[in-house]
C-alpha cells in the first residue's frame, strides 16, 4: 500500500467529513461550467481547479483561490457531478482548513458588535451555514458575558443574521449595512419608472 503523508492537504481534506470524495474527481469540468458564481461574478472561479490544487498539495494556491472563499453552497454542481461528489462540501472543508491556518477571507463576513449583543441566540438559529455560536467572552466594560461569535470559515455573508437581529448587533460590514440598504430602498421607491 502506498504511503501517504497525513499532513498533505489532500489527506487532511479527506479526513474531515464532507471531504471524503476528493480523490474521486476525474476533472470533467461539469461543475465549473454549471456554476452561477463563475458565470455572474468571478470568471476565474473554478471548483475543478481547486480540487486539483488540493489533490496535488498546492496548499497556498488553494487557500488563496477565489473558489475557496466565494462558494455559496447553492449546490447547483452537486446534482450535475457524474461522480456524485458533494463539491460544496469539499470546498467548505478546504475553507475551514484555511481559516484554521489563520487565513482570512478576502471577502466580507458578518461582524458582531459585542458592546450591544445580548446573546439571545436568534442569529444562531437562523444561520443556514451554522457559522454562528454563543461563546463566553470578556468584553470591555461588560465583563465576562456570552456573546455571538461568527466563524469566518463558514460565514457566506448572506445577511440572514443581520436581518434577524433585534438589537442590530450583527451586521455585514461593507456594502450591505442597514443604512446602505435603506438608502437603496428609498432610491428605488422614489424612481418614477421601473
Amino acid at each position, binding site marked *: 500500500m502506498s504511503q501517504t503523508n497525513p499532513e498533505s492537504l489532500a489527506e487532511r481534506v479527506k479526513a474531515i467529513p464532507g471531504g471524503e470524495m476528493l480523490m474521486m474527481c476525474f476533472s470533467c469540468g*461539469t461543475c465549473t461550467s454549471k456554476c452561477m458564481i463563475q458565470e455572474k461574478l468571478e470568471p476565474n472561479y*473554478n471548483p*475543478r481547479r481547486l480540487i486539483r490544487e488540493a489533490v496535488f498539495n498546492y496548499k497556498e494556491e488553494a487557500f488563496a483561490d477565489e473558489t475557496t472563499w466565494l462558494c455559496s453552497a447553492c449546490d447547483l454542481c452537486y446534482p450535475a457531478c*457524474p461522480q456524485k461528489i458533494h463539491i460544496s462540501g469539499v470546498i467548505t472543508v478546504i475553507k475551514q482548513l484555511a481559516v484554521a491556518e489563520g487565513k482570512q477571507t478576502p471577502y466580507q463576513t458578518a461582524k458582531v458588535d459585542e458592546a450591544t449583543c445580548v446573546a439571545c441566540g436568534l442569529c444562531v438559529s437562523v444561520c443556514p451555514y451554522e457559522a454562528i455560536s454563543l461563546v463566553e467572552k470578556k468584553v470591555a466594560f461588560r465583563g465576562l458575558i456570552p456573546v455571538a461569535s461568527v466563524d469566518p470559515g463558514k460565514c457566506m455573508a448572506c445577511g440572514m443574521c443581520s436581518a434577524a437581529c433585534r438589537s442590530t448587533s450583527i451586521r455585514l460590514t461593507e456594502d450591505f449595512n442597514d443604512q446602505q440598504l435603506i438608502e437603496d430602498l428609498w432610491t428605488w421607491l422614489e424612481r418614477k419608472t421601473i
Partner: protein
Amino acid sequence: MVDAARQPLIEIKAFTDVEKVEGFVGNFKVTLREKAKYVRADRCNGCNACSLACPVEVPNYFEMNLSSRKAAYVPMSQSVPLIYTIDMDACIHCYKCVEACGSLQAIDFGMQDKVTEEDIGAIVVATGFSHFDPTPMMEYGYGHFPNVITAMEMERLNNSAGPTRGSLIRPSDNVKPKRLAIINCVGSRDKRYIQSCSNFCCMYAIKNALLLKQAIPDIDISIYYIDIRTPSKGYEEFYDRAREAGIKFVQGRPAEITEDPETHQLFIKSEDITLGRVVEHEYDMVMLNQAAIPQPDQNHMSSVLNVAQSPGGWFMEYHPKLRPMDSPTDGIFFAGACQGPKDIPASVAQGSAAAARASRILHSDTWQIEPTVAVVWPDRCVSGKGQACGICDRACPYGAINYEKGSAAEVVTAKCHGCGACVGECPHDAVTQLHFTDAQVLSQIRTLLAVEPEKKILAFRCQWCSYGGADLAGTSHFEYSANERGLRVMCSARMDADLIFEAFRLGAGAILYSGCHPQDCHYITGQVAGAKRASRLEKMFERMGMSPGRFRTEWISAAEGDKYARVINEMQATLDEIPMEELKSEIERLKPEMEKKLSKLNQIPGVEEALIQVDFIVNEMLGKAVSA
C-alpha cells in the same frame, strides 16, 4: 448473415423466442416459440408487393422512428431471411396484401405461434446490447430540442439506406448542418446513470466524425470528451487521422445545452479543461453518444438460461480473464456485447472462441466436469424415510437436485457445479461434496488448530474471491498477521455451521467467514445462502455471550488484497484487546454449548476415522518437534 443463411447446416430461426431451457451440457431441451408472421415462409419470395399495397403506416422502429413503415413489412431491405411480417397491432384487416400477393398465396391470417421443443447440445448467447435513453438528462435537452439527436439516430441519418438516403440534415428545418458537436460519455461514467465506461464510444465518435467529414468536407465537428480512450491496435493512429482531418477535440464534459427557440441553434457550455476557462460554442446540431446498456429483457433471459449477471446487468462470464466466453453453466457460451460492452474486433474474437468451445461439446461423446460434485448418502436422507424436507433442493442454485418426498434426494451430477450449498444447508449431514467432505475439512481444521488455537485466526475463504484476495495480498506483499490460517472451500455456501462450531470448540481465537460480494458469486446465489447462514451464526454467538469480533463476516473480491490484509489485521487487533486469561475462560465456557451443537458430528461417515488419524499424525509430529 447472407453467408450464414446459405450454409446448409445453419438454420436461422428469426422472430423466435427462447421460452425455456432445461437439461444440461450436451443435452439441453430448449422450448422455442416461433411467433406468427402471418406470412408463410415457404411461399414468400420477398417481392414487397404486400408492403406496397398496405395502406397502414406506423413509425419505423428500425429507423429510430425517423420514418415510417407499412403494417406488412421487413425491418430493412437486407433482412435475412427476407420474409415479410404482418404487424397485427397495426393491421386494419383490409386484406389488400392478400390481393397483392395473388397466386403466391403466402399470406395466412390464421397462422398461430408455433411452440417446439428441440434437443440442443450447446448454446451461444449473442443477444447484444441496448442504448441508454438520454431523456432523463434534462441538461442536454434530448426530446425537447429537435436538433439534439442520439448516436443511433445519427447512424440512420448518415446511412445510404436510411430515411434521408444518406444525406445528413438537421431535424428542425431539414438543412445541412455546418457545425456539429458530438458529446461523449452521455450516461456512461456517470454514477447517476451508468457507472461504467461503455468501451467503444470514443472510437465510435471518431469514426462518425471522419465519415461525416468525408461526406460534408466543410462541416466543422467538435468532440466533447472527458478522456479519449483508444487502447487497441491502430486506434491511436485513427485518432491522429481525425485530428489531421480537422476534427476538434474539446476536453471537458458539457454542463448544459441551451437552444435559441426560434432558430433552433444550440449552445454548449462547458469548461475547456486545457484552457481552464468556461467556453460556450454555437452548433447547428448535437449528437449525444449514449452509454451502452444491457438489453431491456436481459434479466428475463438470465432467468431463462439460468446464468448470473454482473453488477451492470451484463451476463456474467465464468472467469473475467481466463474464460471470458464461458458462462458459469457448462454448455452455455457468450459472444459479443451481451457479456459486456465491446467493439467489433473483440466481439468477433469472443464469438469465434465461443463457437470453438461449443463445437468441442458437439464433437465429444463424453464430457468432463469438475470433480467437486455433491453426493447424497441415501440412508441418511430423511426424505427417503418419508419426512418432508427438500432443503437441499431449495438451496441448489442450479436446480441439480431431484427431490421427491418418499425417496432420498438425488444429485444430477452433470448439472452440479460443486458449490456445496446443499452440503452446508442439509440439517442431517446427508449430503457431502467430493474433495470437500466433512471428514476432509474437519481434518484440516483440527490440524490448523493443533497448536495454541486461541492465538489463531481461522479464515474460511471461498475459492473464487476471498482466496484470490488472500493470494493477491501475498503476491502484493501486503503484510498481515502471521496468526491467520486459511482454509479453502469452493463457496461460502459450503461453510457449514458444524465447521464453525467445531473450530470454536477446538478453541480458535477468531474465525473469518469470507466469500465473494453477492454480485460476484460464481455459483449464482451461493453467496446468498452463505450470507444468511453467517448472519444466523452471528446472532447465535452474540446470544451465547461470545466477545464481539471473534466471529466476523466479510465479503472480499479477488481484487481486494488490501482489504483482506486489513480485515485480518483488524481481527488480530480485536483479539489482542481481549486478555489471554479472559479469552481462555470464554473458550472453556462456550465449549459445552458447541459440543451440544456437534453431538451428531461423529456419526457422519468417515469423520471419526479421519479425525483419529489426524490426531495421531499431529501428535506424532508435535512429539518429534519437541524432541528435536
